[in-house]
């Protein structure tokens, strides 16, 4: 059993504090993704779990054992680095077997374990090459193989796909997910790419400026963002946000536009309260090109500024109260710039946030 527990984890470099007291419980065999913009402290947190950075305050436990002062080698973890960090002077076989060799295992056992890992990752044909002779995807696989060879308690991934091109990234994402299904192990995965986070995670941890902003399953953070930061960070295109004032069951925006208070927020807002109205492009659809079964809707007439056809759907750019917003046309037809369309907004998927703090008004 290898659950990972972080208690009030703090990291500072001199007077500069970069991680401000993080609490996180990661269950056995759970795939947790730490996601956030660069500089949010996600990599630092991962490196503290690995033992590559000292913990300035708080407590890290792996499998119930506090590891704060243990060196990396005593934590029984594996890590896949952003730039693979393969040993350039060793062959693939030597790279894979390195940890077992250091541990003083007999050669027969090392060979068996490396062959096993190579079979899982399809590396059997490259065993005698050096990393310099491999492609990016193959190197990535060797790095993963090196990590699984020793059957660690916890896998740590530090932005492992960010050096790969888009196509390979999608492919490796699938492989990582498959790998997790094959070798059931606790995984902590760091990325700045919300798509990776959504597709891979059992649970997403969204970080910003050294704090955890929200923790939840991919669908939870997508459907119930805790604040405007999560709302714009998770999901593509980012959630549309328009500031307004609550007035008589509606939210009035600058100009004369208004939208009804979404059902989930009725009774949670007061007359005259300043709010930020949020909705995703997926839920703003031209009438006749909407999805069915979307519940309560509001009508809104929009002038289209730009249309981006993606094939299966078209992204529409428009404006509401001086703010650029995006909508989505399903089963699209050609749309000209300047065309005026009457649209539907699915209110069950709309959100209200506090205009000052950005926090969701759902609770």
């Amino acid at each position, binding site marked *: 059993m290898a659950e990972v527990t972080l208690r009030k984890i703090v990291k500072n470099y001199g007077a500069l504090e970069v991680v401000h007291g993080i609490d996180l419980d990661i269950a056995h065999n759970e795939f947790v993704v730490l996601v956030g913009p660069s500089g949010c402290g996600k990599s630092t947190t991962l490196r503290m779990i*690995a*033992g*590559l950075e000292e913990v300035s305050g708080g407590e890290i436990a792996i499998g119930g054992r506090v590891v704060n002062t243990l*060196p*990396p*080698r005593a934590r029984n*973890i*594996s*890590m896949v*680095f*952003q*730039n693979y*960090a*393969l*040993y*350039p*002077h060793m062959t693939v076989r030597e790279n894979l077997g*390195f*940890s077992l060799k*250091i*541990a003083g295992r007999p050669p027969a056992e090392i060979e068996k374990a490396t062959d096993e890992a190579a079979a899982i990752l399809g590396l059997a044909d490259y065993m005698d090459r050096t990393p310099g002779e491999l492609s990016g995807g193959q190197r990535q696989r060797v790095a993963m193989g*090196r990590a699984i060879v*020793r059957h660690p308690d916890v896998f740590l991934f530090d932005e492992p796909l960010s050096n790969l091109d888009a196509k390979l990234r999608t492919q490796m994402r699938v492989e990582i997910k498959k790998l997790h299904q094959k070798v059931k192990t606790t995984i902590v995965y760091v990325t700045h790419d919300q798509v990776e986070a959504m597709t891979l995670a059992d649970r997403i941890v969204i970080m910003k400026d050294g704090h955890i902003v929200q923790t939840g399953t991919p669908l939870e953070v997508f459907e119930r963002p805790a604040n405007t930061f999560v709302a714009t960070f998770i999901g593509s295109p980012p959630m549309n946000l328009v500031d307004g004032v609550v007035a008589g069951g509606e939210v009035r925006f600058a100009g004369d536009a208004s939208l009804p208070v979404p059902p989930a927020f009725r009774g949670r807002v007061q007359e005259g309260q300043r709010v930020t109205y949020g909705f995703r492009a997926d839920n703003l659809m031209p009438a006749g090109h909407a999805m069915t079964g979307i519940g309560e809707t509001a009508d809104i007439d929009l002038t289209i500024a730009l249309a981006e056809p993606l094939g299966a759907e078209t992204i529409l750019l428009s404006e509401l109260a001086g703010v650029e917003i995006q909508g989505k046309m399903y089963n699209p037809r050609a749309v000209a710039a300047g065309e005026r369309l009457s649209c539907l907004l699915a209110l069950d998927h709309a959100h209200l946030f506090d205009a000052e703090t950005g926090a969701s008004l759902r609770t």
Partner: protein
Amino acid sequence: MSRAMKDRLIWAVTFLVMLIICLPGLWVVLSAFRTNGEILTKPAVWIPQNLTLDNFRAIFGLGENVLAIPVGSYFLNSLVISVTSTVLAVMIGMSGGYAFARHRFPGKSGAFLWLMLSRTVPGIALSLPLFILWSWIGLIDTKLGVIVVYTAINVPFTVWLTEGFFRQVPRDLSEAAQIDGCTPWQAFWKVEFPLARSGIASAGIFAFLTSWNEYALASQLTRSTDSKTLPVGLMDFTAQFTIDWAGMCAMAVIIIIPALILTFLVQKHLIAGLTFGGVKG
């Protein structure tokens, strides 16, 4: 200009430059196989008329005229001093280079600059202070005295060269090794050291050649066969009124050969080292 012409011109210029560089060395080697009579003839004899090994026989005490120069002792002294100071300089310099490449510490850039500045001091300027200091503590005319001086001279350069190499070894590799179960010490020897090897080899060669060829300081700090090195030993060929040019040249050849062999043995590393680390580092 046609391509062939250009190639020929480049060859001609290269040949000329190499000739200018090599001529003094060539003259030394030639003179080592000639008699003093022929070397000193006026007008000069450019093409040697009769080559002889007598000069070498004399040095090694094999011929009729035996020189009273203890070449064996000098060679041994040179070898002991050069090898020891090189090993010390590489060990200390490598540790320093690693620390500068990997760690943050107060006064780092100042310390690095200071090390480099020490290279700007001409060695001979140190000779008088060193002489006084060494005579106080009794290191004059000892191998140890010379070893300490050469080590000190070689450390800054070794630090500089190896720092560049260690900086090019990604930090992740050492971290990956530590996660794979290495102690920091093991991670260094199994991963970082092998990857910086060519730089360390280059640093070693430079340190060795500097020590092997150094004359100015050694001539001040050594007195007898206890510590005199080969370059200092060259001066034994000068008497009050005469200089045995032929003997001196023969001994110079003996000094050059080990350095030449060593350079050949590691030239692969040396070239890789200087283009890889030196340029970018």
